[in-house]
């Protein structure tokens, strides 16, 4: 029954008085074991991207809250390149539904990592503040995240391989509005 769970969470927020509510959302845990933590890529000459989409459930009852900031505090991935020479970066998109993650602007872009031939694992760190345009999404009970591997390819053959996410924790700081 959502009302009671909402009440308990709201109780916790009220109990903190004027403090903030902080959510550490382990987005990786929603992907782990489903295959969605892996992004196979085949970047053609000139560049391209590949992505994975995941739904994330959040506690109910914060629809009127105001999000102060959203930041990825812990994010790690490994690149396993199997061929070609180029670079692979990551972009994160957030939306209220799956389809909209393909039409919205990236909330975070992670700088590219050069890859060449058979190589890996190449560690990539994914951290940074998300664009404030996605703040309101984190007050809803569900949101969708799309992680895209964005590649450049200056060669004549595809850059192939896969990016494997190993950790992704999103820290959401909420200033609650209980009325």
């Amino acid at each position, binding site marked *: *029954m959502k009302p009671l769970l*909402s009440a308990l969470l709201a109780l916790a927020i009220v109990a*903190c008085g*004027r403090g903030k509510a902080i959510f*550490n959302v382990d987005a990786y845990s929603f992907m782990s074991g489903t295959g969605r933590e892996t992004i196979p890529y085949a970047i053609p000459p000139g560049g391209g991207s590949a992505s994975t989409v995941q739904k994330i459930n959040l506690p109910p009852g914060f*629809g009127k809250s105001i999000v102060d900031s959203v930041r990825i505090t812990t994010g790690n991935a490994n690149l396993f390149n199997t061929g070609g020479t180029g670079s692979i970066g990551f972009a994160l998109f957030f939306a209220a539904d799956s389809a909209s993650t393909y039409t919205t602007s990236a909330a975070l872009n992670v700088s590219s990592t050069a890859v060449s031939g058979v190589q890996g694992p190449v560690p990539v760190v994914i951290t940074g503040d998300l664009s404030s345009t996605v703040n309101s999404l984190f007050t809803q009970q569900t949101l969708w995240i799309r992680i895209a591997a964005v590649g450049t390819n200056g060669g004549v053959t595809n850059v192939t391989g896969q990016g494997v996410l190993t950790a992704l924790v999103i820290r959401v700081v909420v200033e609650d509005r209980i009325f």
Partner: protein
Amino acid sequence: MRTGVVALTLAVLVLAPARAAHAQFSFDARRIGMGGVSLSRDGNVRRYNPAYRAVKNRSNISGAPKFSIPVPLGLIQFLKDHPLNQLSHDPTFNPESSAFNPVELMNLVFNPPIFYEVKKAPAPTNDVEFTIGRNQLVMNLGGARVLIPEDKFGLGTTSRLLDMGVGFAGFHVGVMGFLQYDVGFTLDSMLRRALTDTVVGFQPSTNYNILGDGVAQVGFAPTLSFATRVMRGTGGSDNSDDGVYVGVAGHYYMGGTYGRATGPGGFTTGNPIFGNTPLGILDDTLYTSNKAFGHGVGGDAGIAWITGPFEVGLGANDIGAELTWSDTKVQRIRYNPATDSISTTLISNHVQSKTKLPITYIANAAMRMGTGTTVGGDVVNSGRGTAIHVGVEQRTGPFAIRGGIARDQRKRVQFGWGGGLRLGPLGLDVGFWTHSNSLSPQRAITMATSISVY
């Protein structure tokens, strides 16, 4: 839904600490300065001990004023801090303000700003942190964790709304109105642990419940009471109060209506926790009276012994008060997760049920020494927990100093101290009182001021 959630949340916060401010609050700075004990023969002793109907309340003996007028320094300060013409922009009352603190607002409700808060209990302002994963929900309430109740919490009291009648030769015939309610909640061990454990948190496929039990009944009772002095003290003058007093009262309770609800409300977490929607749990039984006039009898009894400077009393109310309701409806209220709806099923109708009024009591003692010193104490149970007050007053000429200690209904020790100055028929009294009426683990200190008229 959010409004309901907020309402429930605030209600829980209001109920949670089992506060009984009314039992600790007095407009008399003298009483506050003595830890809550009343050395006069009115107030609680007359309410709970029918023997005191036969005892004269002599202010010249007890040193008590005829009445006290509170000086609301707290109200003056409050209006200065929160001008009425700016309330709409006041962060205290404006949830849209970044400085709005709901705990401070609730503390204001618990502690009406009649008297001046010398030391406010600090409202928790720490951050609350949630760790959320597909199969993980951990809440770290920080310092606010101490607000999670360990035992049954709620509120309740037995009140006599009116008590009127006529008396002659020790007898008193009248009618009293009564109101009794008791609403209690208990977090089950799993829920309490989930709210306080910062490592494990909530578990998948686990029931988390709040067990509720509430009853409310109201009615009136024709009453016949008798109080008299059964034994005069030896050596005292005819004008002396010395002696043994007894009082009894019989009530024929006529309940107007009552309702009772009991059962759990909660949810079962999914497996994984955020993989499935939690399933609701609600399986309560509701009793309501179809017709008025639940009947029952009960009584009050009391005894008081006064010898010279010493007096002691013991009184109890609503002894054996059990009401029989001849026409009751019993319903079962359940939540059906499959249809996401609440259903009500009639279990039985037009059946008999019974309710009880809790026994309330007071034991009091006071000793007035010839040196201007008066000590006293009382043990009061007004229907939900026992409060103990012990206090002393030392009068020297026009001056008085006072002190006291108490154990409140939440079993917390509180302290009172103060003083007074009497000039003829008027006196000015100041009393300080620690209290735990705020949503805070720390005590606050209130300064009460009042003018006494002798």
